[in-house]
């Protein structure tokens, strides 16, 4: 791409100088609030659920209620009060340090943007199952997908399978029940995800995890990778709130307090500070 700073080169920015062009919505004082073509105050408030509105804001599409209810159930599964879980622990540390709930919960949410768990796994796990289905449709047997795409050596590398702390995930059973109760049937991504799981369990004793289930299910619903990542940006907030509240109410420094010797020092022995200039 040529990047000469001609008038035409800067036109794309000049067009938006001082002006917001949106397909999302706006407040019109004295009139109403518009959201994706809906009158928010008359057409959405009291008529749709919080999670329907969340999906509308992220995707621009107002979903049927059962999909929003399913999403809400996954949020409950993604976050529970256990202060050992890393993002929750950060919320609790914020509580014990007198941080505001906004600061502490925000910090915990950032922590879960992780390669290991939480919303940080969305892109890679969605890519895996969507690519796996593409390969299946091009003729790859599931065994080959597992051997060539899901494991390296004897380690399961496919994000969406295996899980920190435990090789299996009890939340799958709960979410499968919710999906069935809501009238959803398994689509091709989820069917393949379960086929892959069965092989991984036989060969490596590792199962699908909640992220793998969610990404397969939502791929079957036609959502894209970035849409799913955006939907789940704050999904761990519930457990962080709980752990923050307990620690904040418990008093300063009372959450997992450390004596000086509770941190093991493995560094250099004590040494004198050089006089200014002596290291130069």
């Amino acid at each position, binding site marked *: 791409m040529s990047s000469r700073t001609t008038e035409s080169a800067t036109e794309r920015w000049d067009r938006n100088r001082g002006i917001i062009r949106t397909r999302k919505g706006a407040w019109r004082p004295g009139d109403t609030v518009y959201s994706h073509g809906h009158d928010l105050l008359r057409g959405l408030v009291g008529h749709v659920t919080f999670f329907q509105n969340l999906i509308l804001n992220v995707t621009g599409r107002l979903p049927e209620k059962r999909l929003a209810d399913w999403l809400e159930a996954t949020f409950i599964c993604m976050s529970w009060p256990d202060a050992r879980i890393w993002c929750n622990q950060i919320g609790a540390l914020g509580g014990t340090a007198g941080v505001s709930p906004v600061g502490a919960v925000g910090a915990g949410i950032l922590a879960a943007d992780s390669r290991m768990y939480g919303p940080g796994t969305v892109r890679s796990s969605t890519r895996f199952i969507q690519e796996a289905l593409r390969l299946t449709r091009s003729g790859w047997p599931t065994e080959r997908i597992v051997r060539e795409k899901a494991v390296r050596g004897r380690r399961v590398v496919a994000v969406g399978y295996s899980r920190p702390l435990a090789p299996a995930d009890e939340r799958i059973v709960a979410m499968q029940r919710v999906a069935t109760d809501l009238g959803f049937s398994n689509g091709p991504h989820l069917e393949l995800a379960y086929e892959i799981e069965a092989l991984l369990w036989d060969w490596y004793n590792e199962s699908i995890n909640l992220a793998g289930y969610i990404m397969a299910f939502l791929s079957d619903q036609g959502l894209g990778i970035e849409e799913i990542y955006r939907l789940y940006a704050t999904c761990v907030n519930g457990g962080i709130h709980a752990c923050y509240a307990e620690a904040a109410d418990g008093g300063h420094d009372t959450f997992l307090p450390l004596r000086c010797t509770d941190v093991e020092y*493995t560094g250099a022995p004590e040494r004198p500070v050089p006089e200014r200039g002596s290291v130069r």
Partner: protein
Amino acid sequence: MARRIDPQVRRRRETFAERPRTRLWCEVPSADNPYVAERALCHGYDLEALAGRVAFDEMVWLLLSGELPTPPQRELFGTLLTALANPGPRHPATRGVMAAAVSKADPVHLLPIGLSLLGGTHVGAAEVAHAMTFLQRHRGRDADETAAECHAAPYAEDAPAPGFGTRYAAADPIAARLASRLAALEAGGEALAWGEGFAAALAPAGQGWRPTGVAAAALLDLGLPPRCGPGVFQLAAAAGLLAHGAEMTGQPTTAMPLPDEEHHVIEDD
């Protein structure tokens, strides 16, 4: 087809550390309260002895590397930190801090807001990490050949490779001059030198260094790993973000633009 297995959930048999370990910092407990630190050591140096004898940039280097910087290291590191100290009032990170400040956000949140918005893949900390990895992989290769490959498979619309490309459709002259200056320093090494060649190979397309690439190359030449790059970039810029926030805090809400309805247009799909 239903799920084929119903595995029993058991916790893995992993052994976790009984206590955290660090080679950075030692806190010596006081005699009468094991929670109170009587003294603190940083990589073996007494904190109170360090204060007043070493400057902040030297302290940062000590924390990251374990040793006080040599004069050439300090020259390169300090020059880089100074050059990166303010992303400027048009960078989205700074604008975010200014918007938060003028809308009376709690001042303790100003830096976290700014540093989060400085974490992006577009002229942000994430690009620094990607650029360090790119430079590690490609330095030593032919710069022209690499440039041709990158143009065929660009990192982003405006960046053939992380840390290189354009800003607003033009090469960044400040970043280019900074790179040349750093490359000429004694501690400037292979990454800055290769980056200079790569930027020259991109020049016919009107592209060159971005500040993220300069930071990445300098930090590699200083021996820091990619996992440190984003944080150093954010640390340096924190000063400018803080200053812009402090300037805007206390000013009326009207001190920043807020487009009226005529300039907030709802467009159809």
